[in-house]
């Protein structure tokens, strides 16, 4: 009968030759090629994105402007201001016009870049590093250390940082300079970095390769520095970039409220604040410093966002 002659499936298995299986493809992977990691993957993605390049070029440009303002303008920002020229329009010597005090708007913008960027970078140097250290200690030790540090962070986190900075600045109004402003902003922004750092450390600490490291007999501290921290850093860098942008905005807001940098210091916030009474007669003196501020903040925000999307495979899929 035909049913009896058919081969019985359970008896013998069909095994495909190696050349027809995916094993062949796996065997062909070149091990000598360049190793890929999170950063090289992100870089491969980043360098194809125009927004990344545009924002980086603007950031570099503003840093160069802040460091060497005299390269970009030969007009002194304060000396030689003539009240006769108050609120005068643009001319060949003063391409963006003049302020109420008869000072060159463009020159003041160029010379004001330093204060704004300095506050931004000092804030992330203070609050970014403090936050990263506290977050990694909390994540690494866990238990009561974690609880204490994070509850402490909650307290700082539940005061909106600009309101906190307003209080600090009005208390220390006698000792205002770039560092004090940066300290006032940074004192209440560190918990956001700490939270990200902690959750990243917790995530990486529980991953398989760290367990493998433990199984191989590595000490906890060595694991922490060699494996956990390097893998926890990327999201922290993203948050830091975004908080740099927020710090620059915060400085301008404080200066606008009159509790930021002293009015003698050239900064975009002070220029905008000084120009507000002439909004109707000479909007240019308000709009140009605002534009400089906006482009700077936007560059850092876009830089941070493209970095975030490139570092996170999930976010890459969302695009």
């Amino acid at each position, binding site marked *: 009968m035909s049913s009896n002659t058919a081969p019985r499936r359970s008896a013998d298995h069909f095994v495909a030759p190696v050349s027809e299986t995916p094993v062949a493809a796996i065997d062909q992977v070149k091990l000598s090629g360049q190793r890929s990691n999170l950063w090289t993957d992100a870089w491969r993605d980043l360098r194809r994105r125009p927004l990344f390049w545009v924002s980086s070029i603007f950031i570099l440009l503003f840093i160069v402007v802040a460091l060497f303002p005299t390269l970009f303008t030969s007009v002194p920002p304060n000396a030689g201001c003539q009240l006769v020229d108050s609120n005068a329009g643009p001319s060949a010597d003063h391409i963006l016009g003049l302020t109420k005090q008869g000072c060159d708007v463009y020159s003041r913008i160029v010379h004001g870049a330093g204060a704004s960027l300095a506050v931004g970078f000092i804030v992330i140097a203070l609050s970014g590093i403090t936050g990263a250290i506290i977050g990694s200690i909390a994540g690494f030790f866990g238990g009561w250390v974690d609880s204490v540090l994070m*509850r*402490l962070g*909650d*307290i*700082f986190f*539940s*005061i*909106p940082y*600009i*309101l*906190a900075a*307003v*209080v*600090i600045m*009005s*208390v220390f*109004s*006698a000792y205002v300079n770039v560092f004090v402003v940066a300290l006032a902003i940074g004192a209440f922004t560190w918990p956001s970095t700490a939270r990200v750092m902690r959750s990243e450390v917790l995530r990486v600490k529980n991953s398989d390769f760290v367990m493998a490291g433990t199984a191989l007999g590595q000490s906890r501290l060595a694991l922490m520095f060699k494996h956990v921290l390097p893998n926890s850093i990327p999201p922290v860098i993203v948050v830091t970039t975004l908080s740099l*942008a927020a710090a620059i*905005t915060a400085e*301008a*807001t404080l200066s*606008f*409220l*009159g*509790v930021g940098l002293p009015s003698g210091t050239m900064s975009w916030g002070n220029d*905008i604040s000084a120009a*507000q009474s002439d*909004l*109707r007669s000479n*909007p240019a003196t*308000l*709009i140009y410093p*605002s534009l400089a*501020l*906006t482009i700077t*903040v*936007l560059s850092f*925000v*876009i830089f941070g*966002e493209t970095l975030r999307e490139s570092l996170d495979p999930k976010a890459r899929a*969302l*695009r």
Partner: protein
Amino acid sequence: MVFYVIRRILQAIPVLIGTTFLIYFLVFAMPGNPVQALFGDKTPNPALLAELEKQYHLNEPFIVQYLYYLRDVVTGNFGVSFSGQSVNDVLARTFPVTARLALMAVVIEMVVGVTIGLVAGLRKGKLFDLSSLVISLLFLSVPIFVICFIGQFFLGFKLGWFRTTVGADASIPNLILPAIVLASSLVAINIRLTRGSVIETLNNDFVRTAYSKGLSRRRVIPVHVLRNSLIPVTTQLGADFGILLVGATVTEGIFNVPGVGNTLYQAIIRGERPTVVSFVTVMVLLYLVVNIIIDLIYAVLDPRIRYVK
């Protein structure tokens, strides 16, 4: 649920103590003798000085002074503003205006932000999506006072659509421009949140199931996709409130809206430190309470929150 409510409120107590302590510590660190300052340039009678210091507990150690202050805060006594009015009286007059403005901003934020975010999420990568992303990034980056001035100059002064300042009459039509300005950065945040959340929700199995049941797009998008995408937007409301408080200070100041924010703004501009401190304290307390309420609402909406340890 009751257990969760109790736990959430208990969690808030150390934060409340901590924040008031921080603010009080900052004020304590303020240089100068506040009683001496009452007399201006005159030299006060030492006996009177001692009596006043005793009255304001300034002769007590720091921690005792703080406990007196905490008692005042808990019993709702926020002290006297610089001009001699009690802070509670000022609050009673100004709070309704700010609440109206904030509510208008939240409505604009939710309606505009969620709608644009939903459409952008549904048309991922299309022109609408890209342009809404660029615009929202722009609004996130422009400081609120710049948006205020630009709105005041173009919409109020050049086009004449709105009044440039509000003044005493804080009725809803007069508050439209300040509310739009106040909502602008929140709208930007909401667009981005909703968009990301919609894209994520669209990939879920239950959306595919809904379509394969034969449901129309008209039903799936609002009922299945939108409702599930709103969870992160609701969570964000708490943080939004902090942005609203700071934004209201600047916006009310620039548009001269007679609200809590404007009172704080004027106090900051004039350097009236005691008023600044009492209003910041009030705002921080409000922020804490609103965040507790939002967490509780959130727990009602999403049962998963209640059971997570």
